């Protein structure tokens, strides 16, 4: 049963600094970018990208390993260690996490949070197990959604390839009740399209879950960040626009401030404070 949280749910969130989080998708040791989560293009070197984003004011960095389930994690963990040594920002890693051992391995490598999806839907107890050992704040539910013909959204697994049959918002509420500390909502329909984010989806999830909600998929302009924040997003997750330099982190931050939102203070010199 959904905890129905009224509109003033948005009020508190409105006063907290909005986070801007670059998402870096990895295939082997290359950065790739999916379009609607299929079809990958090589974009660049992950280490360099992460460093550049950190220097430009990113609040956190999110790495997605798109081939972990196929090839294991041997390529990604050294990268995570290298990046975590260099940048002093929260690092989230996701992709093919199937056990507490996978979870621990990722944290050991230097990540602060682990994003889980498929295994959590298949075995929801996993969320609670991970939260009890590692803390809720390190468990991020990755919620990948496609709009349903009749309204609402369905949660998808396997990096957007397979239907779960579960209502996305209901599943988000359940996952948080089970111990997920954050929900990262991605619109599969909008991902990589630069058509603008699914604002209704953002609002639906943010209004129902108690945990902070990160939203990504389809951001097309800095103003989209403000629009998402207005609907209760505590963080915006951006890939395409940043990787192809159609937008900068500074643009996103400026748009948030222009809309009356707070952002994390950076040093006057512009360098990371």
């Amino acid at each position, binding site marked *: 049963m959904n905890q129905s949280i009224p509109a003033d749910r948005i009020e508190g*969130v409105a006063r907290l600094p909005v986070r801007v989080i670059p998402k870096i998708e990895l295939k082997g040791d290359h950065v790739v970018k999916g379009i609607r989560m299929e079809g990958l293009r090589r974009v660049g070197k992950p280490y360099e990208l992460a460093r550049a984003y950190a220097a430009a004011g990113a609040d956190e960095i999110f790495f997605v390993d798109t081939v972990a389930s196929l090839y294991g994690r041997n390529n990604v963990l050294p990268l995570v260690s290298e990046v975590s040594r260099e940048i*002093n920002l929260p690092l989230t890693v996701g992709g093919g996490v199937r056990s507490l051992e996978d979870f621990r391995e990722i*944290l050991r490598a230097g990540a*602060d949070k682990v994003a889980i999806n498929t295994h959590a839907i298949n075995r929801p107890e996993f969320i609670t197990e991970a939260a009890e050992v590692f*803390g*809720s*704040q390190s468990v991020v539910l990755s919620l990948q959604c496609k709009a349903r013909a009749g309204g609402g959204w369905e949660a998808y697994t396997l990096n957007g390839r397979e239907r779960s049959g579960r209502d996305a918002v209901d599943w988000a509420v359940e996952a948080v009740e089970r111990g997920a500390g954050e929900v990262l909502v991605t619109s599969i329909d909008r991902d990589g399209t630069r058509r603008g984010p699914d604002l209704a989806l953002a609002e639906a999830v943010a209004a129902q879950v108690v945990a902070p909600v990160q939203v990504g998929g389809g951001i097309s302009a800095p103003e989209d960040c403000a629009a998402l924040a207005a609907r209760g997003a*505590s963080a915006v997750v951006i890939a395409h626009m940043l990787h192809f330099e159609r937008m900068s982190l500074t643009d996103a931050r400026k748009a948030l401030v222009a809309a009356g939102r707070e952002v994390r203070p950076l040093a006057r010199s512009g360098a990371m404070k």
Partner: protein
Amino acid sequence: MRRVGIVDYGAGNMFSVSRGLREVGVKPTWIQDAEDCENVDAILLPGVGAFGESMRQLRARGFDKALLEAARDGKPILGVCVGMQLLFSRSFELGDHNGLGILQGTVVRIEPSPGWPSPNTGWRRVRARRKLDGTPFSKIEDGDAFYFAHSFECQPDDPKAVLLEFEYGGRSVCAAVKAGSVTGCQFHPEISGAAGLKIYRTFFSAT
């Protein structure tokens, strides 16, 4: 630079914390045996995860007695995140647990209020409640933001122990405490950018 030991009791954020120390030129030692607390000049107690389980691990390895002794000897101790919470007398996370009892106070769930997410995750600006000279926070500025990720807050019995606080849910919540040589930091200095590293640098380079 002094010899700094990180208590190794399986806490999830050990590596994140040790990386932060390396950044400031401190080579940390892992303290696996409680008696090795005596062989370092300063101790860092990391922590994420459940309070009760963490205390069980600490007790099982004898760290409860060793840390209490180190505090009595005036050895600098810095507890970070759950490490800070463990320093206190009592926590109500998933039950009713005794903490290390080095700092007097309780750890309670952050009161849920409509409009404020739980856990409290993200960057928050802190405010100084007292002068920061002589504390690891002496080089930070009022209004600096740090990264928090927690569902429980510390409520020290002595309000004078509070160094830093932040606003959440229309109240002031404790961000850092100090009593004697023992400091607690609710946020994560190692992932709070340059401002966070300043804290480690100050704590670990003081002689």
